């Protein structure tokens, strides 16, 4: 068959009507849009119609994380229980056991984006494009990555979120690309607005308002090291230009897990080898590099069930069906090298001790490792946090940020509060509502504030830097920290003293003191402190309720 014939054959084989491949395309579109919709909805936008209380999100924004089989399996290994909504993942696991990696080809938002960025036009059957879709030995890397991550999880440190496609995509979009897109769009709109062309600025104004109301936050958000998160994600997308779905084929630990589960799958590709004339159209369109072509066995563990091969095959060679012929057509097990597996397991074993011989978790914990309210004790936290970024996305004041090394190597990109950027709103519990894995336990407003006879949940404690504080060091009035302190009675009290100014005159100022019993570490004092570069009052994690060791006072004193 020459190229022209192939092309004609490829086109002719596009079956009209609702083929399974089109259904797959529809499913990918719907789930990607749903994913983006829920991402955008992971925010409090304010409702001017609602009665005041209480503020909750309207949509199940964490559902993709809960459908993620890797999240379920790895947290079971690290915590020995399946947390709340992660039970949904069992449905996906059961379906994968029967069908194979449909999740990758039909649901996964990163899979869909990779698919989109690696898409080949149907009429380009050049050897270059065919060759890059052959099964390669390096595709086994993802299994070794998976084994390493699972071994680390079993030892008690959850690192799957670094590479899990759902967490990775959520984190990258929410903390980097979405804010970056907002920046770009509003710079453009501002530029249009500044031109003051009558017929242009009004639509620009309305567009800006609509975007702020429906998609972005009213004011810009900033996330520490956001550039790196976005950079990694864009690199993953660009790699598709070299090898389609490179991330899915070589790295994705969720794909690897689902690939392993696919070994029981009853559904698969039956090949009529005699009919095949090696046109390689199936290879040209293969998403998983799963050997769809005639003459070799199809690899269940690599196939994303995109169904392209069946659709483009001009000769009736390829058919997806239940109970395909295992002897002639199907290889259920992935290619796993013993050395690779051992390397993965060894890396997983080595990670935890290496990470923990540096001081951090128990000894000499970082003072800025301020966790959100409701966070469980640090060791349990590291066994639960997926680093997905949901809590950081939903935080209304932009207070939560991906950690750099405040929580050690293990805690990379887990949430920490940076009070200079935002503070914990005393009546807000949204971060505790969106955590899919119980690293942050759900709290009610009453539990958080310690009403009804309970103690409030402390996330840290404020300290005054008397060398920078205006009334303490500069004979100048201020009281801003006290004014904003949300506890009642206030956790910052003022003492009136007469101090001397540089010119020798006397002035009465009010100097702030922190009440260690009442302060729970919200950080609004640090946020509002008029000393802009480094605040004269700052919060550190000491006294946090969740820790038995990072304490300051004996815990038995009661708050009146």
């Amino acid at each position, binding site marked *: 068959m020459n190229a022209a014939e192939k092309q004609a054959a490829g086109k002719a084989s596009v079956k009209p009507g609702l083929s399974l491949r089109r259904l797959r395309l529809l499913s990918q579109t719907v789930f990607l849009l749903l994913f983006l919709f829920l991402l955008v909805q992971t925010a409090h*936008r*304010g409702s001017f119609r609602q009665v*005041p209380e209480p503020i909750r999100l309207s949509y199940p924004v964490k559902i993709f994380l809960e459908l993620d089989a890797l999240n379920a399996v790895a947290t079971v290994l690290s915590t020995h229980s399946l947390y709340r909504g992660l039970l949904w993942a069992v449905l996906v696991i059961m379906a994968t056991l029967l069908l194979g990696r449909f999740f990758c080809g039909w649901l996964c938002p990163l899979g869909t984006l990779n698919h989109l960025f690696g898409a080949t036009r149907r009429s380009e059957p050049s050897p270059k494009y065919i060759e890059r879709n052959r099964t390669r030995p390096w595709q086994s890397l993802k299994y070794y990555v998976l084994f390493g991550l699972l071994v680390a999880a079993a030892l008690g440190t959850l690192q799957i979120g670094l590479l899990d496609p759902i967490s990775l995509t959520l984190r990258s979009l929410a903390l980097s690309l979405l804010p970056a897109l907002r920046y770009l769009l*509003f710079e453009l709109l501002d530029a249009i607005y500044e031109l003051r062309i009558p017929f242009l600025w009004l639509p620009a104004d309305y567009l800006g308002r609509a975007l*702020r109301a429906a998609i972005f936050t009213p*004011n810009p958000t900033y996330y520490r090291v956001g550039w790196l998160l976005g950079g990694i994600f864009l690199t993953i997308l660009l790699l598709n230009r070299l090898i389609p779905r490179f991330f899915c084929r070589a790295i994705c630990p969720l794909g690897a897990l689902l690939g392993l589960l696919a070994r029981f799958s009853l559904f698969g590709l039956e090949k009529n080898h005699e009919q095949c004339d090696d046109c390689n159209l199936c290879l040209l369109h293969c998403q998983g590099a799963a050997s769809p072509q005639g003459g070799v066995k199809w690899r269940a563990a690599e196939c994303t069930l995109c169904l392209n091969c069946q659709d483009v095959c001009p000769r009736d060679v390829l058919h997806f069906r239940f109970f395909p012929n295992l002897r002639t057509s199907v290889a259920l097990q992935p290619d796993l090298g013993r050395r690779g597996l051992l390397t993965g397991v060894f890396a997983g074993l080595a990670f935890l001790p290496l990470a923990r011989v540096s001081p951090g978790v128990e000894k000499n914990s970082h003072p800025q490792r301020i966790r959100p309210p409701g966070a469980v004790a640090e060791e349990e936290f590291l066994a639960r946090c997926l680093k997905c970024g949901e809590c950081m996305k939903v935080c*209304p004041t932009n207070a939560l940020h991906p950690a750099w090394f405040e929580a050690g190597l293990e805690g990379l990109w887990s949430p920490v509060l940076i009070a200079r950027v935002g503070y914990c709103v005393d009546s*807000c519990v949204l971060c505790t509502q969106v955590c899919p894995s119980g690293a942050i336990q759900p709290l009610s407003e009453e539990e958080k504030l310690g009403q009804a006879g309970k103690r409030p949940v402390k996330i840290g404690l404020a300290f005054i830097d008397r060398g920078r504080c205006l009334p303490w060091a500069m004979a100048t009035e201020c009281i801003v920290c006290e004014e*904003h302190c949300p506890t*009642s009675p206030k956790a910052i009290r003022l003492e009136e003293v007469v101090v001397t100014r540089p010119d020798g005159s006397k002035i009465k100022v009010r100097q702030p003191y922190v009440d260690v019993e009442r302060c729970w570490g919200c950080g609004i004092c640090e946020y509002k402190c008029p000393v802009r570069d480094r605040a004269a009052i700052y919060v550190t994690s000491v006294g946090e309720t969740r820790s038995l060791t990072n304490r300051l006072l004996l815990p038995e004193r009661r708050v009146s």
Partner: protein
Amino acid sequence: MTEESPSSRREFLVRTAKAGLAVAASGALGLLLHNREARRPPVTLVPTHRDLSVPQPAGFPRIVMVRGPSPRAITQAAIRELGGMKAFISRQDIVVIKPNMAWDRVPQQAANTNPEVIQALVELCYEAGAKEVRVTDVSCDEARRCFQRSGIAAAAQAVGARVILPEEHLFREVALGGEVLDRWPVFVPFLEADKIINVPIAKQHSLTRVSLALKNWYGILGGVRSRLHQQIHESIADLAAFMKPTLTLLDAVRILVHNGPQGGSLDDVHQLNLVAASVDQVAVDAFGVTLFGYQPTDFRYLILAEARGLGTTRFEELKLKQINL
């Protein structure tokens, strides 16, 4: 030698002309953009004042205090006694109502202006023929939560007001022409309004002791306004000089007596069921401090404001009317 003639004369001329143009253009552009000064030329702003006051019709009391169980009824009565909203609002006016909506608190906690008071005012403005009534504030806490939980956004929007969030792009640098306040970003709706009604709530405050109408003007500013506290009395007087409202109505339905200005506990709240309204914002504050047991002359910012001719602290000497509903 190459196999074909490398360049004809024509090609030689065209290429030389193109290269020459490119060289000339880059040189010209360089000279055009050349500048020894790294700083942008400073933008000079003309000091402005927002005087939105309207002469009060003769025969009506200058200040009115109304007490009663319904926040809505006492608000309506207060405005009626001052001469009615029609005396102050013209047809087609854009009216901005400025509640204190600074805190992420519910109405019972008395950190924000009473939503029923705001709702009554919005209705009165529309009845008087206002084109649009805008309700907004530059909150201290996260604005969306403040607007929602204060109940003000819902109450105002229900009767047709436009609620405007203090978004970052809606601020404009303004020369306030004050003694301590020079240039400051001001929230644009306050610059564009035809009429402004200031509706503070009476609260304790550790620096000024009481936060009333004049202190409420902090909420028109953006920027790092926590710097203003260093000379708070002068700042407040400067703001009052910059912004002369059409009307001032003090909400003392509930007042916050401890842990101001944001409170948090119902123990901090006293219920007075009272509003006070006037065209003189200084007089309203002078009356307001008496609710906390102080004398107007104890407040330096009131003395400064009076000295600048912004109003009177001797509110008892005005023609006043007290009503119990």
